[in-house]
């Protein structure tokens, strides 16, 4: 592992953060009275689109795991299709989990679903980009001592921190402060976003500081 790898990781992560920042400011130019809190759903859609796009572009440009296997066009297409299906499945899966956590079943379905979408954008999309639709690899990355590169390590950190952020985001909901951001699911989406950003920032730093101890099995 070289320092250049860590630097590359840092730059890609900064780009991801930049895409979130853009998703806050660019729409204000085109849309009247756009704000994160009032037109929250719009922002969710835009943010998720931006983050997905940036992740895809970065994946294509940086190519963190160089697969030297055959890649025919049909293989690529099925792979992309599979990714889409996985993404949708993860959205539905997260939606179900939110309902199990107490989100209303019938009302606010769109809000809950968009929360699921943004959370899977922060978690599933990077996984799909990096690991592809390969559940075995996912399980490997998210088990103890299973990571094989700094990219996977960073992925692990950002995903977990996004989930923790969303989890912590639910805490202010019962408080009686009557703030606009306490409405379901705004605090959770914001929590997830903060968690994602925190993960993006901290993972290169963490890897840098622990670079002596980290020894990846050569894959």
């Amino acid at each position, binding site marked *: 592992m070289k320092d250049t790898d860590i630097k590359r990781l840092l730059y890609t992560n900064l780009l991801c953060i930049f895409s979130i920042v853009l998703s806050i400011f660019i729409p204000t130019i085109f849309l009247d009275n756009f704000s994160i809190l009032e037109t929250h759903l719009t922002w969710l859609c835009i943010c998720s689109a931006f983050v997905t796009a940036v992740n895809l572009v970065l994946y294509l440009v940086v190519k963190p795991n160089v697969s030297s296997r055959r890649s025919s066009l049909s293989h690529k297409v099925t792979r992309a299709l599979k990714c889409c299906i996985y993404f949708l499945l993860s959205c539905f899966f997260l939606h179900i*989990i939110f*309902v*199990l*956590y*107490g989100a209303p*079943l019938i009302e606010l379905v769109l809000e809950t679903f968009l929360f699921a979408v943004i959370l899977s954008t922060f978690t599933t999309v990077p996984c799909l980009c990096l690991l592809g639709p390969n559940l075995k690899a996912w*399980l*490997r990355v998210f*088990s*103890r001592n299973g990571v094989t590169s700094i990219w996977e390590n960073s992925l692990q950190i950002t995903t977990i921190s996004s989930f923790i952020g969303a*989890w912590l985001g*639910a805490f202010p*909901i*019962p*408080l*009686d402060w009557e703030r606009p951001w306490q409405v379901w699911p705004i605090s959770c989406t914001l929590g997830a976003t903060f968690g994602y950003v925190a993960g993006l920032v901290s993972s290169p730093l963490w890897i840098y500081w622990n670079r002596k101890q980290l020894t990846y099995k050569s894959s």
Partner: protein
Amino acid sequence: MRLGSGAFAACCVAIEVVGVAIFIRGFFPAPVRSSARPEHGVETPAPEPVAGASSNWTKLPSPLFSKVVIVLIDALRDDFVFGSKGVKYMPYTTYLVEKGASHSFVAEAKPPTVTMPRIKALMTGSIPGFVDVIRNLNSPVLLEDNVIRQAKAAGKRMIFYGDETWLKLFPKHFVEYDGTTSFFVSDYIEVDNNVTRHLDKVLKRGDWDVLILHYLGLDHIGHISGPNSPLIGHKLSEMDSILMKIHTSLLSKERETLLPSLLVLCGDHGMSETGSHGASSTEEVSTPLILISSAFERKPGDIRHPKHVQQTDLAATLAIGLGLPIPKDSVGSLLFPVIEGKPMREQLRFLHLNTLQLSKLLQENVPSYEKDPGFEQFKMAERLHGNWVKLHLEENHSDVLLGLGTKVLRQYLGALKTLSLSLSTQVAHYDIYSMAVGTVVVLEVLTLFLLSTPHVLCRKDELDVPLLSPVSSLLFYLLFLVLSAVHVLVCTSSESSCYLCSLPWLAAGGVMVLVAALLCAILSALIRMVVDSTLLKKSASHPSSGWSEVDLLLLLGTVGHVLSLGASSFVEEEHQTWYFLVNTLCLALSQETCRSYFLGDDCEPQHRFHVEQECVDILACTRKDSTSYSTPEPDRKGKGVSLSETKGSSKWWAVLASPWLVLICCRLLRSLNQTGVQGAHRPDFSHWLTSSDHKAQLSGLAALSLVVIFMLVQKGCSLVSKAALALGLLGVFCYRAATGIVLFPWQPDNKSISKGIIEARFVYVFVLGILFTGTKGLLKAQVIATDFKTRTIGLWEIHSGLVLLAALLLRPHNLPVLAFSLLIQTIMTEFIWKHLRHDAAKITVMHYWFGQAFFYFQGNSNNIATIDISAGFVGLDTYMEIPATFLTVFGTYVGPVLWASHLVHFLSSETNNGSALSRACFCYALIGSVPVAAYIVLVTSLRYHLFIWSVFSPKLLYEGMHLLITAALCAVFTATNQTRHTRA
């Protein structure tokens, strides 16, 4: 002395209960009271103030009204009379309010808005302390000075019909009475007819001075179906016609007497949007107060916005109206419009009497009363009043007199207002010394717990308690002396009364002994810990295996929950915290199952050793338990074993699916009962079930739940218990059918509703029978030392006896909660705990969490109003304090108790070794006492918080009760464990 960790924990929790009791006694302030006891005979009334010569008016003023009728309608909210409902359903009252000779007010009730404290407030004019809520059930005789007592002393003849709480508060005060019980909340017709049937006779007779009618029907309707029910309208119309009847009769009688009569219509408290009461929302504290008398002037214009007054003002007004001395503890001010029509001299005299009484009360309760603005105003007014009287006696009828009179009047009214306000705020007065001693005891116990935790969890389950070592006994005597000196110093120096000082010396000394002994124990534990840690460092540095996600979650969740108690919203919505934690726990367990199954990353080659000996599973467990704490590795291996074992079988999918099943169950339960403050008004499934249109569905669901309960419970029972259980559950359904809540499919609708006493007692017989069989099994296992199966069956039978009792006490719509609780217990046991091989500590914490979640699933909250009192009257035809309290407490804490009993059974069936149970007891005690200790500190620092009465105080009572139950459960744990120890 060596003490098992279970027994140690039980002792500690018991001591903690004492500490919490002392704290609670100090925390709930004693209300403002006059020191002059009413027994000291009739005092001479204060004379009219006069400057110079003495007044010729020293007696009490004569009564303003010949007869007073008080119509108290329970839970009458202000908008039922003054709002659109009043216009629609109470036309006569509306007419009186708008055009008749009446004065109407909105009287504000102080929380707790529960009937008995409100009656006390109405009749004594004082603000009862919060502790009265707890005494609401066993209404002791009212000892404070009150209007009823004064009226009796003055020889008034009083008649009472209605809620029998009055008869308990005022025994032998009424010449004629008929009490109705308020415990059968489902009845709202009989309770009121029971009052009204006497009315014609009494009104005709007229040989009485005071008539009090307390109608309960409206309150019962509120409890059954809320304030928007169509039944409310009918009830209001009924009340309106009763009021009309009384009013016309009074008017016709009035012609015979010289004095007019007074009719009072009031409510004791309001009704929240869900139909309950007890808290401090606007709907609950606003009650109408209408005074009707021909003495008042008719007012032409309609008054749609009545003035806001305090409920306590009625006592002073009634006393003046009846010509009685004002109750000594009254903090209310006379309702001025009542005396407005009187001559100036009388008006001033009344105001003087009231202000004098209030200022006396202030003098007795506030050390620096002279600086109080109200007191200064009073002194000023009294002086002016003297001058006015002097002028008046000099036959000076000029404008000067009138001008001065109005000035005095205004001064008096101002003084009254200020005095009343400063007395009302006086109630918040804490007994800091008792609180501090209680806190010290609780914190000492907690420290002791925390210090012995590493020892118990990592080494062995027995603790050395140094009792007679010379150093510690010397230290103990020293500490005891110091503490006693401090106690004497505090008690002699403080002028305010505190509870500990009022205790007899022996009891106070006992508390000091406790504090000193605990300090010594802490010191010895500290020393032991230091020794332990040095030993540990010397012996071996076995690598501490990292924390698993579940461990981390259990620890952080417990800490987070404790911290969340500092925010009032989190206290109100505590159910959300527990649901959230339990959900996360299930997800973490799901992750653990997935990882163990798919990756098996915890498997070690050594595990074959265990697999080969699968027949001696119990042995393996014993080994696991004796070693897992000092060396965690074998435990981990065990985990791998079970899953690789199951991998081949078809059970693996059940293991993977079970956390999700539990999650789904929790989600369903969550939508059954909406609780808390924000969610309480939301429609939920239980409201849908309890509405009268869905009786059939409710019956079906209740029957289904009972069947499920039977299926789940019977598997571990002996044959006799099985039969008893089946009959008992059938009896539960019969009981609910007899009380008219559920339907028998083959039964006609028009069957009369009974209290179901026989059916309920039938079930009690089976409950006792099953419990007896279970205990017998336990004892047998101890004496004969047969196989350990007898023991397991015995424990399961005790568990199933408790389940049967819970099924009887829970309302039918809550039976699914019980069924789901058993279902989750079964799923978790079969597929999670047995396979993942968690250690005893973790399993205990999980049981505790589920118990807490089920406390809220059942519809409980941290609000007094959600306690289901009806559980205390199942199978009893009269109110009996001890059984009723026991049943209510059990009915409320069904969740924690059942999960704890399941824990005992599970741990004893899994391992044949006492240490697991002993550790579990320790963990249970620890996890139960941490929130209480933290909460006591929090509540002390938040004692001037705005929500201290409405949110934090009820929670403190709940916490205290929960600790008491934890102590009882720990005692049972230890007792169960003891039987094994003696055997082994």
